[in-house]
């Protein structure tokens, strides 16, 4: 790509406000999680206009891992992991077969499947809450793990299908035949040639799918009460030491904890995530 170097200076300067705009709320989240309850409303205990605590404390983290808020947070964290991993696994496996068919085989209805996936992804999920709440209440699926995994498939499948199809379109499938011509068995050819080529796309799709499930609040708050509650829903029900005290520190400590894995994944796989996010939407 040809870049005219003229003017890059101005663009780099413009990058500074963008970085600040992104970073300030993240730092604020961290800062609040390190403030003690007494320092929250006490401006003198913080620097930079109430922004950063003068003496950071980890008491909020103790609160959510072993203290009063742990009874709410730890099960929610476990539920979140189980529900999101299950939904991701089912979505990715189903979408893998589907995307393979779409990108490699000629069959009628290919376009219909892609358009259906798109229509489902535009579907307002809140509109599913009322019927699901009613059906789940009758069938005993309310407040259970499967009761969340099922609607999460509606959130995750369309994107999995689109993203994985886009990745699979770019695989040189002929290499499998070439390997077979060279004397490899069909299993060897698949195992040695196709799997390494397809793995990055499958993996990236799994990450994006996991993000979507991890982020859900609508189903989590509507279809659970306490047994199957996930982190986003649990955060909305955190209570402070007394009824009149908002548990700001505990909420932000929990927020930092659930944000860390996401940030690590982004740091490690940003290039792929970007490719995955844009390939499904933009012709590429």
């Amino acid at each position, binding site marked *: 790509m040809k*870049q005219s170097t003229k003017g890059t200076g101005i*663009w780099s300067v*413009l990058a500074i406000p*963008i*970085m600040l705009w*992104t*970073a300030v*709320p993240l730092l*604020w989240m961290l800062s*609040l999680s390190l403030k003690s309850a007494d320092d929250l409303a006490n*401006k003198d205990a913080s620097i930079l*206009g*109430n922004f950063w605590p003068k003496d950071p404390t980890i008491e909020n983290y103790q609160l959510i891992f072993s203290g009063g808020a742990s009874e709410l947070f730890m099960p929610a964290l476990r539920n979140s992991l189980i529900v999101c991993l299950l939904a991701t696994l089912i979505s990715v496996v189903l979408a893998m077969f*589907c995307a393979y*068919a*779409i*990108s*490699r*085989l*000629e*069959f*009628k209805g290919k376009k219909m*499947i892609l*358009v*259906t996936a*798109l229509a*489902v992804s*535009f*579907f307002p999920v*809140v*509109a*599913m*809450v009322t*019927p699901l*709440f*009613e*059906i789940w209440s009758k069938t005993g699926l309310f407040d259970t793990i499967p009761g969340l995994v099922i609607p999460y498939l*509606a959130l995750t*499948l369309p994107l999995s299908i689109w993203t994985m199809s886009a990745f699979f*379109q770019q695989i040189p499938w*002929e290499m499998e*035949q070439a390997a077979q011509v060279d004397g490899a068995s069909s299993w060897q050819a698949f195992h040695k040639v196709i799997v390494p080529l397809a793995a990055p796309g499958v993996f990236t799709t799994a990450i994006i799918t996991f993000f979507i499930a991890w982020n859900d*609040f*609508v189903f989590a708050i509507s279809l659970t009460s306490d047994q199957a509650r996930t*982190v*986003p829903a649990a*955060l909305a029900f955190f209570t402070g030491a007394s009824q009149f005290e908002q548990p700001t520190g505990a*909420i*932000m400590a929990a*927020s930092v904890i*659930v*944000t860390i894995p996401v*940030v690590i994944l*982004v*740091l490690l796989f*940003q290039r792929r*995530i970007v490719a995955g*996010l844009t390939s499904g939407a*933009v*012709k590429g």
Partner: protein
Amino acid sequence: MSASTPTRERAKGGKTRLSDRSRSEQHLGWKLAMPAFVVMVLVTGYPILQAVWNSFFAYRLTDPENRRFVGLNNYLVSFTDQVFWSAMWMTILVTVITVIVELVLGFIIALVMHRIVIPRKTLRTLVLIPYSIITVVSGFTWLFAFQTGTGFVNQWIQWMPGIDANYNWFGGFWSSLFVISLSEIWKTTPFMSLLLLAGLAQVDSSMEEAAKVDGASWWQVLIKVILPSMKAAVMVALLFRTLDAFRIFDNIFIMTGGANDTSSLSMLIYRQTIDRTEIGLGSALSVILFLCVLIIAAVFVKAFKVDLAEGRG
């Protein structure tokens, strides 16, 4: 023409006759694609049909004995309710504000990412993080930032008229709307900029150069060359975000809980269904929301000629 060539690279007009091979391919294709397709249609199709059916009944979950057919009454009740129209107004306002701001901001960020060479990777990482953060977490972070007494925003902008350390951002409709939109924008602008960045990458740079040689200013190049060739990418990004913003729920629930008329349509559905167990009314609202989304999508596809399946299968 072996079956293994990717469809995109298939030669034009290279339709093979329906041999045994292609017939078995048809079967295999359907077999592989079927499970995902069926699950998708069942998981979304069944609830929406159930919602349509239930919307014709007066039906409270706590009182199933009194379930009775009332025709279109639930819709009438909704349309004559002041609360419904205020939620509709809020939903449309949030959608229009966030989508427009995100488009402008996203485009600026995309241009910066497109142009800078040195810290591009850092910038991309930073921009991706808000998008990957749980919406509820973003909502809480901004809520606490604007909170009276404990937040930092009032401390930072006390030089502005009417703002002091005790200014209550959640005391009225417009200031609440501002903070809700801000959280929404902070989280989703990255998605917009990534889509637009992908669109920018497809702009023919030789046309840019030619325009520059002809003495066009940077601004003219942007308007005359870059934007027209990005129309498709912009439209797709707009459609995705408009439909997404129209479903706004998480930020409102966390920040205001719907106080000061800040409830959206989604919030209304939640209140009717979960708080009041009014399955009939909740279902009618769900159908209305579903139709709104359908209309928006149809307008985009018909009026703006957004071709979503272009370049595929």
